[in-house]
């Protein structure tokens, strides 16, 4: 059953339209990928979904409820969290203070302690660095903190914008292993990535966003097909 649905979404900035009717769905426990070149509108798509970029048309449904146009803080409380590009952790605050801020978006205030324990189990490094300044963590650790901070809000849908950005291949593998575990626990995970190989190999479906439109949908099997991947990513020319 579909948990999350984006229907014919249009968005942009000022006089510039960026998205021209984008649609996608995700069910409970699914990991969905969105790939595309720079300027394709990937971050705009997430911004429009979470309410930080104004929508110009279309709808976003979470568990059947239309959440289009709601305020970002209300959308988080309804169960949709975003791990933004560049992580945007609060570098001046400690790890635990960052996690505590993530609790703001919880619907169930009684489960806060359990939520913190769960993310500490999933990301043990955060326990080690509990009282350290978040800005002093390595890139991989900061990414784990950003994901953990979103998870403590107990989201039903987790959006991640370029989670591999600036990370070494080993760290990227580690981060994606955790994302698979999160999806397996029942959360719908939607990942925007420039590294098409990486996400296509892991996601149930990977949508190719180019010039503000979904141009193709790839499966895990397509990850091995270089030509098909390139054609979908860059357009028919494959350049």
């Amino acid at each position, binding site marked *: 059953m579909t948990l999350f649905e984006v229907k014919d979404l249009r968005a942009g900035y000022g006089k510039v339209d960026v998205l021209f009717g984008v649609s996608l769905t995700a069910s409970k426990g699914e990991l969905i990928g969105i790939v595309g070149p720079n300027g394709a509108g990937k971050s705009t798509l997430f911004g429009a979904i979470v309410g930080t970029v104004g929508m110009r048309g279309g709808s976003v449904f979470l568990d059947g409820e239309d959440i289009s146009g709601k305020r970002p*803080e209300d959308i*988080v409380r309804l169960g949709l969290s975003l791990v933004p590009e560049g992580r*945007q952790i*609060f570098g001046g605050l400690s790890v635990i203070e960052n996690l505590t*801020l993530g609790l*703001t*978006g919880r619907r169930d205030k009684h489960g*806060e302690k359990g939520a913190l324990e769960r993310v500490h189990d999933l990301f043990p490094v955060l326990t080690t660095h509990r009282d350290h300044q978040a800005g002093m963590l390595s890139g991989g650790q900061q990414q784990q903190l950003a994901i953990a901070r979103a998870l403590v809000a107990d989201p039903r849908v987790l959006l991640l914008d370029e989670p591999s950005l600036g990370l070494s291949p080993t760290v990227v593998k580690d981060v994606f292993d955790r994302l698979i575990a999160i999806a397996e626990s029942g959360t719908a995970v939607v990942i925007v990535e420039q590294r098409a190989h990486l996400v296509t190999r892991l996601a149930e479906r990977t949508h190719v966003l180019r010039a503000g439109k979904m141009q193709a949908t790839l499966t895990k099997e397509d990850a091995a097909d270089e030509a098909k991947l390139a054609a979908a990513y860059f357009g028919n020319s494959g350049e």
Partner: protein
Amino acid sequence: MTTRLRLQELLGPILLVVAFSYAVGLQSAQGLLIVQSTLALFVMVLALHVFVGNSGVLSFGHGAFAMFGAFASGIVTTPSNIKEHSLQLQHLYPFLVNLNLGMYPSLVLAILAGAIVAGLSGLLLMRLNGLAAGIATFALLGVAYNIFFNNNRIGPGSQALLALPPFQFFEEPVVLTVIVMLAVYLFGISRAGRTLRATREDPLAAPALGISIMRVRWIAFTLSGAIAGLGGAMFAHVAGTVQVQDYYLPYTFMTLSMLIIGGGASLWGATVGTLLVTGIGQILLMMEQQKPILGIVVHLPNGTRAIVIALSLVVMLLWRSDGVTKGREFKLGMPKLRK
């Protein structure tokens, strides 16, 4: 759950303030006046720290809350017979003439007045950021100034309200200040305080976590308005008089300078800034008045004090915008003035 009281962060500033109060205040009547007026200004600086320091949004409007606090406390503590016969209070609303409260109920009234004005104005002002917020809060100060300056139904208008009762004991303003310091520190380490600092650090990331920036700013603005109301009332009772000009531009400039020079992001910064500016200001004042300092008389022209403080502010903003304490809380062994 995650609120952690680091005792030295609280005790360091408190001990410094108490030590300053006793060291200077018990020396002479002049020392007592310096201590009490410094503490009243410090409470105002703490109010600014709660909002400006934690949110990063500049406010020139806190003088308005101090004004409301000062006049609320002043008008109810001025004896009825003085209100009846004072020329500048002849147009006062009759219920205000007959309304008399003791010092402490009047301070509660001042806190409420500051909180209410801040809470109501904050519903609109907290939607603004950056320059717009600064200008709008400045406009609020102007509105409050004109209300009190031109309205002699609620106060003496452009004249001074006289004969306010002073603090009876030396310890009273010290204890009040320590209580405010405790409240300010607890707010800083509370979830609301941390959330507010997070919005200062990254206002774009905060909504993605379910944080309503406007709501947390409004909470801090209202709290800081309450503290400013108290600070204004304390200032009035120290001076024994209230005049609307006392809470206008020089007051706003002085208290903001204290906060910025010390480091607005911490209780320690607010404390150090207030004492530093007071100390330097007093030395320069003595030089302006040709009074000997350690037996030496240095003559400086009038106005030097204001110029030096203004230049210090410029220097801090240029080269050390987070203040002499770098916005850090007190920590034993911390080199406070390290470059």
